Structures are given as structure tokens and as C-alpha cells.
């Protein structure tokens, strides 16, 4: 019974040590520059789809195309 509690204590201690040893390596540094996400591609794509529909209607007109 006593050896078991010693074992668990050692285990707990080693876990604490492990976690403690890991902590400084997980360091998140905030970027000094602002994060810029460019959404132009998506917007452009949406517009293309929109005008494509209108152009398709135009292309059906024999007097235009």
C-alpha cells in the first residue's frame, strides 16, 4: 500500500516535471504586423458569376452576338 502511494507520487511528480519542462517551449508570440486577410478573390468570383448570367442572356440575342 505504501509503495503504491510512493509510486503514484513519483508518477505525479514526473508528470508535473514534464509539463513544467514543456511549458516554456509552447510560446505564442503575437505578430508585430496586423493580420491582413485578402478577400478580393471571392468577391471577384461572385461578381463574375453574377455578370456571367446577364451575359448569357445577352449572348442568346441573335442581333447582338
Amino acid at each position, binding site marked *: 500500500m505504501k509503495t503504491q502511494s510512493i509510486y503514484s507520487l513519483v508518477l505525479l511528480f514526473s508528470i508535473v516535471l514534464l509539463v513544467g519542462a514543456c511549458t516554456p517551449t509552447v510560446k505564442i508570440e503575437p505578430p508585430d504586423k496586423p493580420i491582413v486577410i485578402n478577400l478580393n478573390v471571392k468577391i471577384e468570383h461572385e461578381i463574375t458569376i453574377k455578370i456571367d448570367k446577364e451575359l448569357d442572356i*445577352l449572348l442568346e440575342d441573335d*442581333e447582338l452576338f
Partner: protein
Amino acid sequence: MTTRIMALLLAFCMALTLSFNAYALTLQQAKNQGLVGEKTNGYLGLVVNNNDAKTLMTEVNSKRKLHYQKIAKKNKLSTEDVALRAAKKAMAAADKDHFYQTPQGKWAQK
């Protein structure tokens, strides 16, 4: 005398048919005959220097421009952007043997 009248009549008839033909030249005919082709900027171009085709081309291009402007305004784009997109579509949709302009500016047949 009769021959003169006959000749005049013939000339009159010919003129009539010619003018009728000029009026009846449709865009599809002009494209089939290879008179006009699709340019890279979204407008029609003259492949063969022909007055009727030229008139038709000017007319069609002005109509196209109006439509491009309308779409451009609606989608807050420039007319040129819409026209370029239309050019790509028109070229893709062109029938066989119809003319289109290559990026180098030369006429090619589909």
C-alpha cells in the same frame, strides 16, 4: 428603244435587290459569310472590308456597348471589364468557321 427600257428596268431591279440585300444583312449572315468576327475587347470587328458589314458592325457594337454599360453599372464594374468577359464568352460560344481575333490581333477561324 425597247432594249434601253429593258436595260433600265433590269438596272432598277438589280439596284432594288442590292439595296434589299444590304438591308437584310443580318449579324448571323455576316458571321456565316466571314465578314465580321469577334474581337478580344468584346466587340465585333471587320474581317472583310465591306460597307454593309461595316454598317452592321457599327450598329451591333453600339447596341452591345449599351448593354455592357448597363451590366457594368449594376455590378459596379468598368464597361471594359464586362466587355472582356463577354468577349471570352462570345468566343467560346462561336460557331464553327466563325472568325475571332487572337490575342496577337490576327483573325482566326474556329
